[in-house]
């Protein structure tokens, strides 16, 4: 992981922000990506869980629909709502070509999006958000054959 992460840091994957068939905008590969490669780190502001709960309520009241809050572990959450990198634009898919994984670099946990399978140029990057089950359902728009219907 560490070696792959350092490689990613030195030479970022060529990605493009463009119109998505899944939802509004998305992130697309601009180069072929082999399986199990680090595609991008999910970067944002590291906050405590209780602060994330309070913010989630605030975001709902101001109408920020989708959640850019990503739980790292029981102690910290990455909030990419107002600051972060392109990873916040990756759309969800029930049949994704990527997956998210927590790695530890120099003792600090990070969220990294890996390729699950080879990804071709212009293919949209997707991963399973794995949202917790909630009562208020969010419809899933991924449109893949085995779509679960909702994100949560």
């Amino acid at each position: 992981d560490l070696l792959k992460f350092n490689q990613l840091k030195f030479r970022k994957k060529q990605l493009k922000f463009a119109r998505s068939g899944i939802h509004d905008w998305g992130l697309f590969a601009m180069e072929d990506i082999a399986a199990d490669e680090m595609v991008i780190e999910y970067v944002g502001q590291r906050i405590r869980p209780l602060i994330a709960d309070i913010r989630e309520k605030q975001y709902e009241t101001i109408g920020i629909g989708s959640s850019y809050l990503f739980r790292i572990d029981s102690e910290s959450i990455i909030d990419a709502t107002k600051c972060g990198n392109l990873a916040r634009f990756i759309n969800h898919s029930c049949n994704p070509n990527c997956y998210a994984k927590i790695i530890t670099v120099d003792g600090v946990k990070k969220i990294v999006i890996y390729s699950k399978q080879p990804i071709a140029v212009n293919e949209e990057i997707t991963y399973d958000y794995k949202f917790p089950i909630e009562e208020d359902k969010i419809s899933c728009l991924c449109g893949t054959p085995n779509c679960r219907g909702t994100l949560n």
Partner: protein
Amino acid sequence: QVMLALHDRATQLKVTEGRTAVTGDKGYASIRATHFVSRGTWYYEATITEMAENAATRIGFAQALANLQAPIGFDKFGYSWRSRKGTKFHDSRGLHYSDEGYGKGDTLGFLIHLPVEAT
């Protein structure tokens, strides 16, 4: 001997050797005492030994369910008095309590009056 509980606190708080003083930094975190009360009238005192410039404390009474990763008075399970502006808090609502806050060198008193026949 009533002391600050090592087992009933947000782990990021630092408790002194004698377990009678606690220090925190960054965001709010809480600690409870080793003894609890459930009926009658009780009073305790706390002294502010240090207060950095942009620091604040919220001290008071908290039930067992009060969330310790927040200041006392964040939820319904606690009541606290804040060093800044002397505001009292309960259920995340800050109301005026004392005309000015408190700080280093102040000794504060907290009294709770519970029904004698508490169930």
